[in-house]
């Protein structure tokens, strides 16, 4: 693949020169997100769903629920299972087959945000203690990977959960009701490139950066999850700075899209 190597070198130079001038290819400031849109309840067959667009990135998240057995160590709590499909439709770099390392990490970080923020009231999802609880399947389906699918997926997950109706009547367990949501975790991702921190990277920016940090924050402004990825390093101060901005960004997104 020498041709694509050459192209990526040129692209890297181009983006690096922009960075020196304090610019990004699409004219955004370093801390600015691309345009966000969230369309809720797009899949009628799911108990909850949301289509998130982050610039041209598109992620569809569906939530399905069914009764099942609790884990032995949490007999009175519902269960969350998060899965992500990086289907080859979404990017030339995705391949069919079992989840890749990247897909597994993405699903686990999305899951961590929902779980550690205690977004879902799992105690309220116990049907028969120790015997039967609600199982929540959060399925993340990437449709178009134009960068930062992690933030988009995380946003899609909580947006879909916010629309979810517990399908009690379908299983003769009373009337349907809205899934009880207690917090709204938001993931915010930045990359480090040439000593600059850029938020919400697009696919080209992502490809040239060696380091990425995702910070997930709760409605009360606490941090409930972090994940560094990529084979680069971060300085302590850079981490603190990303955390600070992540808290701000998350607040904006939460208020604008999810508390309406």
């Amino acid at each position: 693949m020498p041709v694509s190597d050459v192209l990526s070198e040129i692209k890297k130079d181009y983006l690096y020169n922009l960075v020196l001038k304090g610019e990004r290819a699409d004219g955004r400031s370093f801390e600015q997100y691309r345009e966000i849109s969230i369309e809720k309840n797009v899949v009628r067959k799911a108990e909850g769903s949301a289509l998130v667009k982050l610039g041209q990135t598109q992620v569809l998240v569906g939530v399905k629920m069914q009764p099942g057995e609790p884990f032995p160590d949490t007999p009175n709590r519902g269960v969350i299972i998060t899965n992500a499909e990086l289907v080859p439709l979404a990017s030339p770099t995705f391949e069919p087959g079992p989840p890749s390392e990247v897909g597994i990490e993405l699903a686990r970080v999305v899951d961590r945000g929902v779980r550690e923020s205690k977004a879902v009231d799992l105690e309220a999802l116990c049907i028969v203690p120790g015997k039967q609880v609600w199982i929540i399947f959060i399925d993340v389906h990437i449709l178009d990977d134009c960068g930062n699918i992690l933030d988009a997926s995380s946003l899609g997950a909580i947006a879909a959960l916010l629309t979810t109706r517990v399908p009690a009547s379908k299983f003769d367990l009373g009337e349907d009701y809205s899934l009880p949501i207690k917090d709204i975790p938001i993931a915010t991702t930045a990359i480090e490139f040439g000593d600059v921190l850029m938020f919400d990277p697009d696919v080209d920016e992502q490809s040239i950066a060696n380091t990425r940090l995702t910070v997930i924050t709760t409605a009360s402004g606490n941090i409930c999850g972090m994940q560094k990825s990529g084979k680069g390093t971060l300085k302590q101060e850079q981490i603190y700075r990303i955390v600070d901005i992540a808290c701000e960004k998350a607040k904006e997104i939460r208020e604008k899209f999810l508390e309406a």
Partner: protein
Amino acid sequence: MDETDITFFKDGFRLDGRRAEELRPVKMEVGVLARADGSCYIEMGGNKVIAAVYGPREVHPRHLQEVTRAIVRYRYNMASFSVEERKRPGPDRRSYELSKVSREALEPVILTSYFPRSVIDVFVEVLQADAGTRTAGINAAAVALADAGIPMKSMISACAAGKVDDTLVLDPMKEEDNFGQADLPIAMTPNGEITLIQMDGGLTPDELHQAVEMAMKGCRDIYEIQRKCLVEKYSQLEAPAEEVHACE
């Protein structure tokens, strides 16, 4: 397919208000994905399906390469949340079969000899399923191929006929499929060359002839929608000659 007590017809209209020979509403949009070389989103009744085309591109693993032509791959996949009961992610036996017959529905019109040693990848994701996902997928995939600029001898359009309450119907929806007496999906070129035909259920030879006719009529209706959709997009762009050619 099973007997049931549902009344499928009332005053000559079907459960959703259609006549026997009527298609469900179709919505089609071309070029909906940024990363793919070609793409198309389709809604046929309750089905929501998206197709993407990548290629011609290099073949991996190499030993699949063909010296004289491009190979075509087709992956039909259902999202876990697309059906009533959550589907385990990944392919099952049904999706392997549908991928095969769908690929074979499109291969006859793709000019694979233009691109030796390469692959044309077609990916179809069913986001919401409501009977007829394979035909919806083929319709979207054919448009996505055109959108990707893949040279084709002609468009491919697909539609099913079914039998419910001893009556033949076009484009069965979920209830008609679940409790129907037969299902006969067809894909074809605008000239009526059939590239996919499958059937299950029970039909007399006479019914079979009628069902084939009916499904072919449905394909022709779909074709008009596909054509319009592509013309709209490419007339806006002042489409280059080969693209227009691609849709006919």
